[in-house]
């Protein structure tokens, strides 16, 4: 499958850097094609400016300057989002990707406001890989926004029958090396299948 991999961690030497290297290798061993979109390395600016906001609903102009990313995500059959959870959600860098790229006419059809439909027709698999400082119970109590980003929001784009999987690791500040290794193995197995 063709994978579009959204990655949003600023430090290459981080735990996320290790997860990414081994998970991509596992996906490629299984025959998948990975298009890595490292938002930091690509210098993505997550802030939607005034001019962009004003033309947001104008289908003839709202893609200006964003064509490259739009073209790549349109090719995706499998969308992977890998990010650290900061202050209860995805980093601003990743949130801004949805703000700016998931546009009317690109990601969804808003011509009938009462019946909005997804435009990502090829997409039928979604995976989230997220690391939390807090524990699972806390995340659950506050509604776990990063999990719902994957399992409800992105799942909607992938449509009915899509395979959606969320792979979280909790208590990042206190877990040990063995627990980290176990998590990476779990992610590898997910992509080997």
């Amino acid at each position, binding site marked *: 499958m063709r994978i579009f991999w959204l990655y949003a961690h600023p430090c290459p030497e981080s735990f996320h850097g290790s997860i990414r290297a081994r998970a991509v290798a596992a996906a490629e061993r299984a025959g998948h094609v990975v298009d890595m979109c490292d938002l930091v390395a690509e210098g993505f600016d997550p802030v939607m400016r005034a001019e962009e*906001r004003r033309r947001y609903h104008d289908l003839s102009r709202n893609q200006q300057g964003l064509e490259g990313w739009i073209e790549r995500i349109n090719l995706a059959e499998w969308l992977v989002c890998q990010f650290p959870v900061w202050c209860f959600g995805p980093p601003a860098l990743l949130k*801004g990707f949805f703000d700016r790229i998931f546009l009317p006419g690109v990601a969804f059809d808003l011509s009938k406001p009462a019946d909005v439909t997804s435009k990502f027709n090829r997409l039928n698999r979604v995976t989230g890989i997220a690391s939390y*400082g807090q524990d699972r119970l806390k995340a659950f109590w506050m509604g776990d926004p990063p999990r719902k980003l994957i399992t409800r929001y992105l799942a909607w784009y992938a449509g009915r029958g899509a395979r959606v999987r969320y792979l979280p690791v909790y208590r990042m500040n206190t877990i040990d090396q063995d627990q980290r290794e176990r998590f990476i193995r779990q992610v590898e197995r997910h992509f080997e299948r």
Partner: protein
Amino acid sequence: MSMTARLSRLAKRSEEAGSPVRILVVHAHPDPGSFNTALFRVTCRVLAARGAQIDALDLYAEGFQPVMEHHERRRYHDKGDNELGVEDLLERLMNADGLVFVYPTWWYGLPAMLKGWLDRVWLPHRSFIIPEPGSRGPIRPGMTRIRLLGGISTYGAPWLWTKWVGDPGRRTVLRGIGPLCAPRRETFWEGHYLMDQSTPATRAAFLARVEQRLNRLKSLR
């Protein structure tokens, strides 16, 4: 907390009892002519009229940069060093008795601009205290001065859809940030849903509702 620390905190509080309540109103919308920015202005005006001292933080107007860079991430856990570059914004936050968010909900959550303010300005050792590696203790609050917490937002989605996705913006503020604030705090939330189908009448009604809500807040009495 030791007894002396407790006493000095009590003394400080009574000294401040006569001073006005300071409210930080945080706003993030790119278009100054938007309905959302109108909500921001009304919020500041109504709260000021109730005697609060307002610190109006318009992140777009102030040119805030929401992306945490790698060098900042590397010193994120280092007490003191992690404040470099955001000292002023952190002081404005630490001086607040109340915190009110006014923003458009984009994709069920905070705009990147506002999310980045949380990422970069809400820091360990100040806003919250992270347990040492190896211990299993919980993250502890650092913003116990804040006793009023609320939000006003505009949503493209209908109410029911917003709830199904979990209303991440509201929960991030009330349940995520909330526990980092004073244990006994007043909270509120107001939302205008289905913005794409809104009319001048629905917007005027929402403005009036917001004004009423702000006028009812108990912590400003």
